[in-house]
């Protein structure tokens, strides 16, 4: 029907959101009314009994960390794909094997490339 699209299936989510907001705000407000207030400097620090917060929060990381992060994502995703593949492998059979080999070969090419370009060397 034109212009009468109402996503009623999502109504529980809306209610859930409203309840979650109400509970979250309610606890905070109730706490601020009933709790004792005895502030002292140590208690107001971001981390009680932690390091003293000194210096800028943003400082520069070595660019090597980004390469490590990138490589991590690549092989992490590979592992994520391998799990569901292993679960359904029995029902699909040889075709699934070939597909996964193609996927892994492509990643191996990237791996060899990264290796030869010394992306794994810290220095």
């Amino acid at each position, binding site marked *: *029907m*034109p*212009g009468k*699209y109402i*996503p009623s299936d999502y109504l529980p989510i809306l209610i859930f959101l409203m309840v979650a907001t109400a509970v979250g705000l309610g606890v905070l407000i109730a706490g601020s009314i009933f709790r004792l207030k005895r502030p002292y400097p140590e208690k107001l620090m971001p981390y009680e009994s932690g390091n003293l917060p000194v210096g800028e929060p943003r400082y520069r990381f070595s660019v090597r960390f980004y390469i490590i992060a990138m490589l991590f994502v690549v092989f992490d995703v590979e592992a994520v794909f391998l799990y569901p593949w292993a679960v359904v492998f029995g029902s*699909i059979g040889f*075709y699934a094997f070939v597909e996964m080999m193609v996927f892994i070969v*492509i990643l191996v*090419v990237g791996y*060899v*490339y990264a290796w*030869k*370009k010394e992306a794994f060397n810290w220095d």
Partner: protein
Amino acid sequence: MQSSYADVARIIPEIFLTSLALLLLMMELVTKKKEFIGFIGIIGVVITAYLTLITNPGRAFSDMFIVDGYSNFFKLIFYLNVILTILISIRYLKIEGVNLGEYYSLILFATLGMMIMASGTDLIVIYLGLELMALSTYVLAGFLRHEIRSNEAALKYFLLGAFSSAFLLYGIALTYGMTGTTNLKDIASYVTQHGIAKNPVFTLSMIMFIIAFGFKIAAAPFHMWAPDTYEGAPTSITAFMSVGPKAAGFAAMGRVFFDALGPIRLDWVAVIIPIAILTMAVGNIIAISQTNIKRMLAYSSIAHAGYALLGLIAGGSEGLSSMMNYLLIYAFMNVGAFAVIIMLRREGFKGEDIDDYSGLAKRHPLAAGLMLVFMFSLTGIPPTAGFVGKFYLFMSAIRAGYTGLVIVAVIFSAISAYFYLRIVMYMYMREPKAEVELSTSAPLGIALAITVAGVLILGVFPSIVIHLAKASLLG
């Protein structure tokens, strides 16, 4: 549904190109002669083109992928573009000091993305192709990593490109929410059956698609990235970007807008007409004041996207075939012009300022003559192909009843003569300022020969390509 081997047979060109790109990446590790990698790439692309021509047309992978005349024609443009780009890059990369093998595999990956965009009949497949193309192009735009301009180009392109991808995804999500499918044909049939064509959410998703594809084809007001990116990127990549991703954007646009959004054609035409006018205006008027030739050609490329949009607006087999024809011709003339720009680049001399072209005809008559042909073609002066391309576009728009739009386009086309012919004026009517030496090479010469032959042959015998384009749409 499980894929069969017939499905796999339809994507053999794509599989071959993927293997080729991976092979080139491995060759980078073992070979010292990087230009050798480029030559292997060219041979591989020629084989891919052959494989594309012998692939059986039809649908594959549960109707997510299609091989038809439309996709094959666009793939032809992509192959032409990548071959010409490799030819003009080989010497240029040495001059810029970035003679690395990754360049060639990245170009091939970008081309692979374009092929998937042209063949995708499912929004998610089109999105995958678009991302593969875009990510490779971001890296290529920043390939001169020691030059700040190139880094700026890549960063701007990346940030704005990421935004436009988000728009595309949002459009896909809204469409999926409305129709429950991402298949182009199924979307259209659902829309007509359930009568949701006037639903504002569906209109919103249409707007999202226009924004996302408008970014890829650099249509105003989504063109902001183009001048900076085109200026900063390596010249060979500017040539590549101004043809390939643009054509791929048009390919995907044609499919999405005619197959999926066909039921609301009048709505999107009403949005695209002002965009087309604005694109032509911005491109042609701002190009007048440019002093850097790459920047000028960037604005010219924006303007040409505006002309090509006329074909999309006109629609039907006539409009689409004139658009495809124009994009092929544009590939020839634009890469040709960039090849001449690359010729002027040598160690310690940029050759990007329009002043550098002063008196080129006296010292290097052949180079000036080639530039003359490309500039005439970009303006649309017969007997060059640019004239033919514009003629068919404007004819199709007039036949579809958009006479007013065509009048505007012709006026802007006349304005464009100023900045294209200014280059010709500098070359032929000014005294040479400094000694300009050309850095020629055999591959660059071949690229120039191909492009100038394409521009002149298609200008004199225009029916070859337009018939091919029409036949590819019908057959």
